[in-house]
């Protein structure tokens, strides 16, 4: 831990302490060396790769690729943060630096006060990593054998191992699967098995890379529920990369958007809509077919018989608009549709690319 840390929170430095209260929705805005608010801290972190491209027989050209370009952010203990961006944006590179298997080319990076690349093995005891597209489990061994190896690998005390295993088996419904070789598990079962494997050693941070990729709806819901409970009950800090924005909508209050190695946005999900100048849609059912509704603060985008679609800025309240329409038109029913975040983000990318 940082020696200059604030003294009134030192009790949280105990790694076995899971009595932390549920995360505060208003992130405390205290001094910059706080061990809880600075649980993960990046200051101007960069990663530059030398990429060699073949230009002919035995000839190659060296080119530098800036996979991560001066990224700074902090994550508090117990936060659940979505980390999103298109393919090749630098998400995986960031995660690799956070786990210590990749050394930053520049800047400063700390996870739980540890410099990951210098003390990778010590940090490994405190973090859990789950990849949607790979497995940490041993393919030809029964699920339980993988857990036994984890038990030894992470030197988990026997009682704690037994407790954690029981809890994961119950919550992730793994009871019938423990004796099944991993290669025979379905994708959803294997994913649950992988999540359990990442949590047996009580990690304080969990990195999830596409945890719901390829899962069916029921499995997705189950995984999300488990993660939400994990975060609420144990205060585990979660950093989640995903292409499925409903993961973020349902799990994360805060989202970071990265593209071309740069942090484009860091804030609440709602703010992302404002920045992307997104619009919400009001769907109105009238008593009969009428010409497009005429109100100042919204525009009609589509008419289909008695049903009309009106777009209005996402940041604006729907109430006055609804009141106006109800007063002037024969209204039967209405509903408000939230904007598609995917569209918002792609619009954001397009804007930054042209500017």
């Amino acid at each position, binding site marked *: 831990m940082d020696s200059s840390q604030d003294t009134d929170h030192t009790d949280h430095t105990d790694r076995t302490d899971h009595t932390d209260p549920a995360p505060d929705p208003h992130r405390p805005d205290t001094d910059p060396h706080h061990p809880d608010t600075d649980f993960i801290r990046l200051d101007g972190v960069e990663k530059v*790769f030398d990429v060699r491209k073949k230009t002919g027989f035995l000839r190659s050209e060296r080119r530098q690729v800036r996979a991560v370009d001066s990224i700074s952010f902090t994550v508090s203990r117990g936060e659940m943060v979505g980390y999103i961006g298109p393919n090749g944006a630098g998400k*995986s590179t960031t995660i690799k630096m956070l*786990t210590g298997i990749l050394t930053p080319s520049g800047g400063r990076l700390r996870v739980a006060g540890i410099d990951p690349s210098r003390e990778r093995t010590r940090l*490994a005891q405190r973090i859990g990593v789950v990849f949607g597209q790979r497995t940490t489990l*041993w393919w030809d*061994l029964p699920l339980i054998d993988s857990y036994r*190896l984890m038990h030894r*690998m992470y030197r988990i005390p026997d009682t704690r191992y037994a407790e954690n295993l029981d809890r994961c088996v119950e919550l992730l419904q793994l009871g019938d699967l423990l004796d099944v070789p991993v290669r025979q598990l379905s994708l959803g079962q294997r994913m649950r098995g992988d999540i359990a494997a990442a949590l047996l050693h009580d990690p304080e941070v969990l990195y999830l890379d596409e945890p719901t990729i390829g899962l069916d709806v029921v499995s997705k819901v189950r995984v999300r529920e488990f993660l939400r409970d994990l975060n609420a009950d144990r205060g585990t800090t979660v950093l989640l990369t995903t292409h499925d924005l409903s993961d973020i909508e349902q799990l994360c209050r805060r989202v970071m958007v990265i593209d071309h190695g740069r942090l484009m946005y860091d804030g609440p999900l709602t703010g992302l809509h404002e920045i992307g100048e997104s619009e919400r849609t009001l769907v109105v059912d009238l008593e009969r077919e009428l010409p497009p509704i005429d109100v100042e603060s919204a525009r009609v985008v589509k008419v289909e018989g008695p049903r009309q679609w009106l777009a209005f800025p996402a940041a604006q309240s729907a109430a006055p608009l609804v009141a106006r329409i109800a007063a002037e038109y024969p209204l039967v029913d209405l509903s408000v549709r939230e904007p598609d975040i995917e569209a918002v983000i792609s619009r954001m990318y397009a804007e930054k690319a042209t500017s």
Partner: protein
Amino acid sequence: MGAGRLYAAVAASGFRRYATYRVATAAGVFTNTVFGLILAYTYIALWDERPGLGGYDQAQAVTYVWIGQGLLSVVAVMGGGFEDEMIERIRTGDIAIDLYRPVDLQAWWLAADAGRAAFQLVGRGVLPMALGGLVFRLALPTDVGTWLAFLVAVLLGVLVSFALRYLVALSAFWFMDGAGVQQLAVLAAIFFSGLTLPLNAFPGALGELARALPWSALMQTPADVLLGERTGSGLLRTYAVQAAWAVALLAVGRLVQSAATRRVVVQGG
């Protein structure tokens, strides 16, 4: 010793894994026995022509054949150990997962390979030698001490073999496909371990070179120990050479490993 328990568990799972391949083990024993018969008759003809070739009499030469067939899979002269799996993990990128773990990559694979070697010593080592003993009169020692000395030499041979194959596996980080390097390594091992002909029988400078290379630690050295060619201070010197190769090659493996792991991450995933 938490780490000791982990690596013991890994070795045990390596042993169990190979133990489940029963058909492969039986097929291996059969192949070793057939090759042993062919080689033994060839050696008999050769030693008839050149008695005392390489300092062995005919009985020793035939015994050498069966020691070689017994050790073949233990010191993995033809490959087929952990390296196949490791190369596959490098190729698919799954190796990144191994790097997230609080364990040492080299020690992990060494434990797994030690488990494999232990199984193959029992499963594929004993039977061919016993079958050879039924057909031929073998010059095997009767004292326990020599057998123990042999086991130590085999253990060191497995270490050297592992260290060599670890380098082969790591090459996949650069070539993306380890097959070419693997084939070269197997060829070198077949020739320089003394599998085809005892290195003692190699003439002149080639013989000097062959006996100085690390592959001699795989088969020639343990065979010589069992045949009673290395005793007293000579035995200690033999161990020292094997151990020196093991330490040097493992150290090179660590260096290459740290260069390789810096590379792995570029390949995405």
